[in-house]
């Protein structure tokens, strides 16, 4: 009898547990929120009589950890406060992995109200399934072309612009001028060709430091060199013709040979790994973005920005502010107004001065802005942005143009080439066949 009772209790507990687990407690998940946005306007999620526009971003960091995040949150909150009494409430929502949030929604044929992809590409599925709004008519109607800058051309997909990133992912390099001088090496501003760079790296190695961070860093060299050799190829989806082209072969072999001389100990798939070596004077050149300007505060070394050989730079927009196509008219209106706000001179100035990023707005005179402040980081950032913005060849990044899997495959193959004695021709052949299969 006792056993029977215990069995009954256990069985009931398990059933109850399962039912609770599968129960309908509705937390405020993005999925739940999005369901609301898909509903007709009158049924949309509302606070009293107001609708809500949820804006997902990834500036989750504590101010002490990354002050920039607090600045961005403040920018968002100011917009929210300014529209607190309007028909739609603007609600910034912090998530750690904004791409994952969006991807999960997209997999179900939906899209969050509004998202800042922070440089990650807008998933193709969102575009193909027409889940996101074409921003181009609004940009044209409001005359915002110069405010959104290169977003207008780089994010053009068959005549439509689905995303605008308020900051550019501008990539060049940083170098320690003291180390270059000590080694008697030509500095990046003197590199007319990749041979010049290779010679400089050799001189640096002879002086006891290593030249640069390879892997993700040298992929950027490949990216830039490829654009110098064949700008058209870098601006379009990858094709077998490009993979087998002379430009591709030259760019890869040139960079791979430099990487091998540089050594595999200095190759990883994360350029950030080398920040400490660079600031400690072990690495002479750090292939990284302009945003790293803030990393050199208090350093005695003379750190300067540079661009890649052949006057090349990378300025990608990536994905940024992206709006769901299933919003109500009022929500959509506010979302577009937010886009205008984020690309306005006022906010873009804050992005430059306080976030220390390269703003997308082309109407700003960055050097003039930097002169007006007594902040060495801003001055260095202005210098880096001006250099990159005035490069002869400015291209988007490989990930944006050719896809993340292609980007990773190139990095991996360059890393493999950096091992002493590796047959670069054989690795190139492997890469070519891998890429042809990947795009198939």
């Amino acid at each position, binding site marked *: 009898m006792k056993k029977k009772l215990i069995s009954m209790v256990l069985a009931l507990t398990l059933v109850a547990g399962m039912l609770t687990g599968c129960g309908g407690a509705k937390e405020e998940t993005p999925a739940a929120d999005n369901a609301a946005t898909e509903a007709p306007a009158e049924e949309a999620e509302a606070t009293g009589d107001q609708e809500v526009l949820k804006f997902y971003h990834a500036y989750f960091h504590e101010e002490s950890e990354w002050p920039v995040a607090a600045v961005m949150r403040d920018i968002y909150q100011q917009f929210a406060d300014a529209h607190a009494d309007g028909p739609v409430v603007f609600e910034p929502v912090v998530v750690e992995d904004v791409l994952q949030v969006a991807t999960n929604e997209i997999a179900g044929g939906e899209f969050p109200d509004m998202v800042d992809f922070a440089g990650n590409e807008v998933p193709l599925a969102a575009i193909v399934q027409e889940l996101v709004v074409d921003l181009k008519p609004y940009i044209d109607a409001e005359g915002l072309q110069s405010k959104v800058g290169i977003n207008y051309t780089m994010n053009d997909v068959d005549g439509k612009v689905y995303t605008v990133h308020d900051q550019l992912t501008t990539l060049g390099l940083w170098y320690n001028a003291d180390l270059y001088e000590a080694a008697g090496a030509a500095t990046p501003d003197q590199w007319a060709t990749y041979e010049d760079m290779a010679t400089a790296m050799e001189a640096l190695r002879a002086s006891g430091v290593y030249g640069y961070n390879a892997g993700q860093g040298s992929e950027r060299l490949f990216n830039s060199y490829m654009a110098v050799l064949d700008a058209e190829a870098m601006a379009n989806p990858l094709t077998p013709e490009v993979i087998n082209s002379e430009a591709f072969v030259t760019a890869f072999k040139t960079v791979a040979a430099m990487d091998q001389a540089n050594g595999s100990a200095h190759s990883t798939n994360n350029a950030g790994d080398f920040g400490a070596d660079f600031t400690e004077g072990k690495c002479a050149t750090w292939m990284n973005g302009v945003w790293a300007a803030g990393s050199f505060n208090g350093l005695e070394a003379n750190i300067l920005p540079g661009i890649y050989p052949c006057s090349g730079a990378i300025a990608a927009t990536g994905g940024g502010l992206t709006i769901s196509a299933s919003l109500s008219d009022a929500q959509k209106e506010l979302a577009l107004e937010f886009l205008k706000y984020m690309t306005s001179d006022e906010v873009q100035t804050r992005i430059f001065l306080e976030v220390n990023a390269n703003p997308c707005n082309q109407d700003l005179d960055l050097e003039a802005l930097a002169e007006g402040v007594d902040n060495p980081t801003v001055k260095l950032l202005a210098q880096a942005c001006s250099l990159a913005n005035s490069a002869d060849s400015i291209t988007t990044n490989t990930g944006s143009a050719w*896809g993340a899997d292609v980007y990773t495959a190139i990095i991996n193959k360059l890393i493999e080439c950096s091992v002493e004695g590796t047959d670069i021709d054989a690795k190139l052949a492997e890469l070519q066949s891998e890429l042809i299969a990947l795009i198939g």
Partner: protein
Amino acid sequence: MNKKSNRTIFMTLFLLPSCLCFLIFYAYPILQILVTSFCKWDYTNLKNPTFFPAGELLTNYQYILTQYPYFWEALRNSLCWALVGVVIQVPLTLVVAIVISKGLKFSKFARNVYIVPSVISSAAMGLVFLQLYNARYGPIQQIIQKFNPEFKDSILLVEGANFWAIVCAYVFFCGTTAIMLLGQIHGIAPELYEAAKIDGATGLKRELYVTIPLVKPTIKTVTTMAATSGFLLYNEVFFLTNGAAGTKSISFIIRELAITSSRTQYARANTIGAIQIVIGLILVGVINIIFSESKVSQKGGKA
């Protein structure tokens, strides 16, 4: 209602939640993986996977087996890691469990030290090993350079060596399985050891002829766990090499296709998943056969 039918009802009720959970969380996803491996399902039709035409049902399999550049590399690595798990991890775990079971001084301390890494996630362990192998400041690099001062490369990028570097990042962490074996060893009746002692089986013989045969069912379980965890290896690959230099695993390429690829190739990823399930089942089957053969020969010996 008689006693027997009452018992059946209670047993059914008791098993029902587990059965439902199995159907919802295991059987359905497995079925979905198998079914969608015959579909076109990528960024163009995420909401509506569609079957390929009858004559082209195997399109995804054809792509994965004949065109996708990383499949065979990943399969080879995953199978090798599964084998390494069986050949190295299981004997090691058994030895550790037997030694700890002796109740020597500090054995409790040793047991706890051995178990602690098991409660750390493999992702965290991956990061730890990334530091250990760091070519610029990692201790492993320095040890290698003691013996070979000319070695300047990153061990994680040297093909062949990096396979073993990844092995070392997971193969020694088997605290959970050691505890399983330890529990089984402690369950062996002391009388059996006493009888063995009278028959002259002491020291190593005692372990070979008494302990190991008696814990064989648990060894089988531990072997299955070691083989499957090696076969499913992901975190170590992701953190240590990100798949570079010939180190991709089956789990890694599934993620590559489904998540990393801008084209969200769910169906192709599921095709590899389907192959993974089939090979996983074969692995488990082979382990069962190996252990059941031992049983037959044991019986034969008795006869």
